[in-house]
């Protein structure tokens, strides 16, 4: 009853001395959502890009409906009905939504097309002016535009490369519904993710990639533990993230970060942070959780000095830095890890070691660099490799590495584990915990409630630029549902 739609036979692709795909063979059936799982850098995106014609494999075949298909560009793949939605929206910022979609479906950007798109988006309750330039819309909107444009050409195979992973929960549910309906009609979806719960929620079958090879195929049911073993070869890392509150410094240590009645505007001049106050003491982890778009980004940037505060104050280690440039704040002991590792967290055209030297602003010995690479599990373990050649999760790790290179007093991190697989995420959370145990303060701005309740002393819920509720003490995990409620309803 499982009719084969596509066979991938012995795909092999290497980049320099990194083998990204090392003989991958798998079948894709009609009417299924095939989940491809794997740790960061295991070759998932490379597989997706080969199937979409972005990369030409060094060896191996793609057989569609029984005959071999050769793609030398996405143009060819699209002709076969293959479409990919990628990890980062591949839209052209300076073109309008309409022009982007027109480009993709091969029509002039006409008024009738605009109408069709708007009708299409309305079916998903998304009302948006399609004449807006893409740079002015949010990440979530971009991903939905990507999905819309893919569905508008009626593809036979939809490859989703971590494109839904970072969407807010309600939209993700909607996205999943669309995918389920989509495959019912002699089509297929390849859904790529490194998140196990998400995989189990959407998948019919599961393929686990490890270091470019198919580690295991689950035809039907799978459980988290088996998936973890297939992905990482171990589950040990789960033990890393447990609360180590008791060993923390005494409660009356001094503030390393104080934010007082801070007001910050967004790019359009609207109030994004609205008189917010929060303190972080030495040895403390404070989380701010919120649904994206409630001022989290502006808050982080204002603390880092990348965005002007309209009023209020920011103190680092007792010094008022409200008017200081970012470099001054760094000198006072602040490390800021921005949300987007590609655009803000790294200089992608430089190598890993060059990025690290840039963060540290001093000579770094090879040992320190290699140690940071090890602690974060960056692959490949080669400091000279250009950051743009790393997989998404590993780029994020390079961005995080700055907190291991200097002796900061306080770390402000915005969604630092968003792109990381479970094990890397555990490593990073462990690093944050160790940092706080050694007397540092952490402000973790995150949309991941799990990590907030797992490692924090306090969890503040941010809604509309303000702290709507503060949870502290005892077992924060027990407040989880209350926290989630507060995130949505304030």
């Amino acid at each position, binding site marked *: 009853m499982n009719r084969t739609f596509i066979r991938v036979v012995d795909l092999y692709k290497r980049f320099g001395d990194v083998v990204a795909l090392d003989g991958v063979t798998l079948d894709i059936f009609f009417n299924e959502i095939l989940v491809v799982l794997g740790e960061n850098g295991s070759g998932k995106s490379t597989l997706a890009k080969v199937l*979409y014609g*972005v*990369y*030409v494999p060094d060896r191996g075949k793609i057989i569609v409906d029984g005959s071999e298909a050769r793609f030398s*560009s*996405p*143009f060819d793949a*699209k002709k076969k009905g293959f479409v*990919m939605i*990628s*990890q*980062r929206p*591949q*839209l*052209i*910022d*300076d*073109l309008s939504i309409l*022009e*982007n979609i*027109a*480009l*993709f479906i*091969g*029509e*002039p*950007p*006409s008024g009738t097309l605009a109408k069709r798109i708007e009708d299409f988006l309305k079916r998903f309750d998304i009302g948006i002016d399609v004449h807006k*330039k893409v740079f002015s819309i949010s990440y979530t909107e971009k991903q939905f535009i990507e999905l819309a444009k893919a569905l508008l050409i009626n593809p036979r195979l939809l490859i989703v490369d971590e494109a839904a992973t970072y969407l807010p929960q309600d939209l993700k549910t909607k996205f999943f519904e669309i995918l389920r309906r989509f495959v019912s009609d002699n089509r297929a979806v390849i859904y790529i993710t490194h998140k196990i719960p998400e995989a189990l929620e959407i998948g019919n079958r599961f393929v686990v990639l490890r270091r470019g090879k198919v580690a295991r195929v689950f035809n039907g049911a799978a459980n988290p533990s088996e998936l973890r073993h297939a992905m990482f070869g171990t589950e040990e890392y789960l033990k890393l993230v447990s609360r180590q509150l008791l060993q923390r410094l005494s409660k009356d240590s001094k503030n390393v970060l104080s934010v007082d009645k801070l007001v910050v505007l967004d790019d359009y001049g609207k109030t994004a942070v609205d008189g917010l106050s929060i303190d972080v003491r030495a040895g403390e982890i404070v989380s701010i959780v919120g649904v994206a778009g409630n001022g989290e980004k502006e808050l982080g940037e204002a603390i880092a000095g990348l965005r002007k505060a309209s009023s209020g104050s920011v103190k680092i280690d007792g010094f008022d830095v409200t008017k200081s440039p970012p470099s001054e704040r760094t000198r006072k002991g602040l490390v800021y890890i921005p949300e987007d590792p*590609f655009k803000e967290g790294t200089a992608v055209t430089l190598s890993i070691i060059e990025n690290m030297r840039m963060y540290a602003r001093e000579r770094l010995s090879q040992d320190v660099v290699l140690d940071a690479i090890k602690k974060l599990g960056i692959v490949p373990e080669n400091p000279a490799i250009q950051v*743009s*050649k790393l997989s*998404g999760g590993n780029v994020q790790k390079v961005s995080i590495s700055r907190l291991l290179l200097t002796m900061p007093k306080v770390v402000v991190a915005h969604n630092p584990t968003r792109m990381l697989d479970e094990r890397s995420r555990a490593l990073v959370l462990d690093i944050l915990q160790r940092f706080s145990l050694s007397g540092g303060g952490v402000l973790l701005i995150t949309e991941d409630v799990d990590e907030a309740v797992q490692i924090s002393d306090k969890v503040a819920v941010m809604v509309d630029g303000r702290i709507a509720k503060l949870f502290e003490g005892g077992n924060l995990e027990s407040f989880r549902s209350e926290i989630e409620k507060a995130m949505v309803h304030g």
Partner: protein
Amino acid sequence: MVEPILTILADPLAIALTLWILGDIVVERSGVINLAIDGIITFSIAVTFVAVQNIGYVQGLLISLASTIALSLIFATFINVLHAPHVLTGLSLNIAFYGVGALIGLRYMKSRSLVPIGIGKPILALIGVATAVLTWFTLYRSRLGTEIRACGFNPRAAEAAGVRVWRTRYIATIIGYTLVSIGSYIYTTIYRSGWSQYTGMGYGFLAITLAMASSWHPLIAYPIAIAFGYLYTSSYALQLLYGVPTDVVNALPFMVSLAVVVIVYATPLSKKVAMPKALGEVYFREERAA
């Protein structure tokens, strides 16, 4: 009232300049720095001149078109297939093209001048306006134009959307140099009707500069070209009538262009007409972006 305006709009130098700038805009909107344009214009003026002199006006136009496009394809091949750096390729090809143009001109020239084509002002003016509007329509309202601009903004994302970047850049080059060639034809047969070695040299760079000044937008480029042409050809009159010093008169067209650049970039207009960000980026398909 109509007559003097028509005269300005039908100024053959301004029309030639309009076509050169528009041609350059189409090429650069696809992401290719078009420095070879100066050599190619010099070449196509020489070819037009000798072809018209030796064979005829219509044949001259066709020969000019064919040879200009052929040269531009050499340029495009260096960029798209051999992935050569744009600036270096443009500058070195220029030197070769100046030479080839001079060689052909000197070898086949019969006399230093030819009989200019008599063409009505309304028609000339119409050529200028219509080409500007058509170029705008193609770039901003057609499928091809959207693809061309996409390649100039972000070739990798364009490729991911199913655009074949190198093919699109070739097409943009052909369209652009068709306009350039017609511009050279108008320059040679209507405006100048004469030729000497290296006639036209420098106009390519002027076209690049003015295209940039317009932020690569056809409908902004057109008035710039007309104003520039007017000031350039009437500078002699200004001098006679108002006694403006020669140096100021000669600098005037350039100062006006500068003023336009300032106006375009200092007002919200520049936000609306985004420049081709990937201009000059050597594009390989397999390098990763994310």
